[in-house]
């Protein structure tokens, strides 16, 4: 466990010192302040503008953070051969995958927490009173990032270039928001083969709509839903991490 933690801390340090990390967090922060200025256009709904745009921006920038760091995390280390120095240590190979994943997710969470704190400060300035749904939407976004992180790690092992793993991960993130549309397509599909293919596709892509809590703010969705979403998210991450470990164990360097 200590060795996994050590790899996670190393990854965290590595990501946090990367200039891209600061740039993304900085831009998200700037955008939150831009919404603050734009909110005057919203009349009575000014708070809603800051709340909705802010949450979406934070999630989007967190997504960029996790994808950009995630796809290069392992692939770059393999290409630069830095990974050799870890793999020649007396530790099981899967420690590396799990440690890298936790470090990646943790560094993204730190960036997110900074952005959420700034967002809250801006909201409070506008007279917002804390709503528990805000916390639920934050937790949901955290879970989404954990899923995308596991996909980024998987694709960085699966593909041979950062660009292709970046495209794959981004593609799955995008499709993850259209699962109900895919379900509709399955119903409408006539050819049985197409139906089967779409069904398989439906189960492979992450259903990120489970985690769009911010879309349901004030709709009265029960918090117990979070537990279901968490179980789904955790299982999805686990499956993709196991697949990543299998791939990594078979890989020659």
């Amino acid at each position, binding site marked *: 466990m200590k060795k996994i933690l050590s*790899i996670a801390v190393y990854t965290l340090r590595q990501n946090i010192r990367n200039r891209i990390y600061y740039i993304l967090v900085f831009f998200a922060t700037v955008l939150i302040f831009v919404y603050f200025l734009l909110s005057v256009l919203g009349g009575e709904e000014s708070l809603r503008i800051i709340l909705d745009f802010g949450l979406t921006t934070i999630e989007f920038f967190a997504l960029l953070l996790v994808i950009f760091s995630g796809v290069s995390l392992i692939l770059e280390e393999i290409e630069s051969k830095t990974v050799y*120095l870890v793999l020649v240590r007396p530790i099981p190979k899967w420690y590396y995958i799990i440690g890298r994943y936790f470090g990646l997710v943790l560094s993204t969470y730190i960036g997110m927490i900074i952005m959420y704190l700034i967002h809250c400060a801006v909201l409070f300035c506008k007279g917002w009173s804390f709503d528990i749904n805000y916390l639920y939407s934050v937790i949901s976004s955290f879970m989404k990032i954990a899923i995308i992180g596991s996909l980024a790690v998987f694709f960085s092992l699966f593909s041979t270039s950062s660009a292709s793993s970046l495209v794959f991960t981004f593609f799955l993130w995008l499709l993850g928001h259209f699962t109900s549309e895919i379900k509709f397509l399955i119903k409408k599909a006539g050819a049985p083969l197409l139906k089967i293919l779409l069904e398989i596709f439906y189960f492979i892509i992450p259903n990120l709509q489970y985690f769009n809590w911010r879309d349901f703010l004030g709709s009265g969705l029960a918090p117990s839903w979070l537990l279901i979403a968490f179980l789904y998210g955790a299982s999805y991450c686990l499956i993709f991490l196991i697949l990543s470990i299998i791939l990594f164990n078979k890989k020659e360097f």
Partner: protein
Amino acid sequence: MIAIKIENLTKIYRRRHLGKLYKTVGVKNLNLEIQEGEIFGLLGLNGSGKTTTIKLILGLLFPTEGKISIFGKLLPDRIVLNLVGYLPEIPYFHKFLTAKEVLRFYCNLSGVDKSIQEKTIDEVLNIVNLFNDSNKRISEYSKGMMQRLAIAQSLLHNPPILIFDELVSGLDPLGIREMRNFVLNLKEKGKTVFFSSHLISEVEKVCDRVGILHKGSLLKIVEQKDWQNKNLEEIFIETINTVQ
């Protein structure tokens, strides 16, 4: 005692392209025994299989056939890796970290006790003459400093076997001399050193025995006394020419 034993080791690289399978021989029926405390050099032209042999010993590649054991323990066994220190051909470290941070990380992975970690790190930094630059970010390091840091990480867990892939590759004359003395010091401490090189002049200065590898096959093992009578370069060229 035999430190590293290689029996009938074969590695064939398989690559598929447009449905066709391409096979390349990495090493072929390699048999080698390296005694504890000796400096063994693996000499060969580029692409002769030196790095493949080293990677097979370290478990970075899987053998197609054959067995490797370290101090009698059959590989693959990840725990046995604790007995080995490794220097890669072109060492690279994450540029945003400092040397001390990198070494602390490798100490943790190698299981160096927390209570002696800082002392161990200072010791190895002193050995490789990098102590004064240990808090600098690696992005500020020169190639020679990177090489020294790479050696430092291989020494952290005090392994009895050291495997160096192209130890002096890309170093200036002073750096090469420093590395030579360093290897000889390791021998004095009773360490087993196994290293690959294509620089004959360096190999003959430090090695007890040399293996000549060509196109994946070990052609000959030469002992120090042999190249005292006859130049190692001549022996190498003669050996290579016999199979050309």
